């Protein structure tokens, strides 16, 4: 899933300071799963905004709405009947959401309520970790099913670097050295030959380096 975290409330308050009618829009996709942008969090943010207004003796109206997904125009459309009542919209979907809202409702001020972090998963309840960098050409099978592009701090294709110590990355003790994992796994499986293979420089054209990406699936295009 796409993992996000809430923006600091102060930052959100600063963004919407000049607005009296605010709509908080959640998303039932990834951000619901990672407990940051679903219906529950819409309620929490809306309540927080109201408490802030109460404290400052300001009158505000905060609406709450959660879409099936914010990354699909058909669901974004759903807001068309209610959005007019509001001056500003805070989207707490990943970075895709507020952009789809901005494109669909260009006359509205749309604000991001979360910081989108990475593509990953929950390794424990309440703890998420990055797993994919979206490089566009997956080769994790060379590396025992572990991605060095996303999970090595230096994206080494021929690691580990000299900073790997005790299974941890030199950057932080909170980061597992993925190359330590790759090496141990492949050696255990008797795949030393695979480890000794030189992995040539990657063609980054399929990654973000090739410019903003677009995908066309002719069989699906109407």
């Amino acid at each position, binding site marked *: 899933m796409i993992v996000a975290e809430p923006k*600091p*409330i*102060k930052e959100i*308050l600063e963004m919407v300071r000049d607005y009296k009618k605010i709509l908080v829009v959640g998303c039932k996709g990834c951000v619901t799963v990672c407990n940051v942008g679903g219906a*529950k969090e819409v*309620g*929490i943010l809306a*309540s*927080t905004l*109201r*408490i*802030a207004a*109460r*404290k400052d003796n300001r009158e505000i109206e905060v609406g709450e709405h959660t879409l099936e997904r914010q990354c699909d125009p058909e669901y974004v459309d759903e807001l068309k009947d209610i959005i007019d009542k509001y001056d500003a919209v805070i989207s707490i979907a990943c970075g895709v959401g507020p952009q789809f809202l901005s494109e669909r409702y260009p006359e509205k001020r749309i604000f991001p309520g979360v910081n989108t972090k990475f593509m990953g998963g929950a390794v424990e309840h309440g703890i998420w970790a990055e797993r994919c960098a979206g490089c566009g050409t997956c080769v994790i099978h060379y590396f025992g099913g572990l991605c060095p592009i996303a999970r090595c701090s230096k994206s080494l294709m021929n690691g580990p670097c000299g900073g790997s110590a005790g299974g941890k990355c030199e950057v932080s003790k909170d980061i597992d050295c993925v190359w330590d994992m790759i090496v141990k796994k492949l050696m255990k499986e008797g795949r030393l030959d695979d480890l000794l293979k030189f992995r040539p420089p990657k063609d980054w054209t399929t990654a973000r380096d090739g410019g903003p990406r677009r995908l066309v699936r002719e069989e699906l295009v109407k």
Partner: protein
Amino acid sequence: MNDQNSRKIIAFCCSNCASSAAGISHKLNETLPENVEVIQVPCTGRIEVLHMLKPFENGADGVYIAGCQEDSCQYISGITKAKKRVQHVKKILSELGIEPERIEAFSLSAARGQEFVQIARDMTDKIKAMGTL
């Protein structure tokens, strides 16, 4: 409700321990301050962040949770979860420039009638001192 001396306080009380304590306190003829409104819950572990925020939104000046001892919670980790959420709400309040002490969590046991009343009184005094939100 907003009279100077009766700041509204919402107390979420676990029906397994805090409410028994309340019962005992009643027998002891000890009464809770009038401004404390008790909401009985089967387990404090189900009180979500939003439940803790709502009273503030709706005019309360203080909120507290009274639940089990952490090592003898009826539902094992109910009070532990509630305490973590209280910490989270404290963070939200601080970010809003509101005293984080307006929300607290307490552990009680069923036999502690006097303590139950004392917590309500202490909380009332504290919130009174802070004034309205």
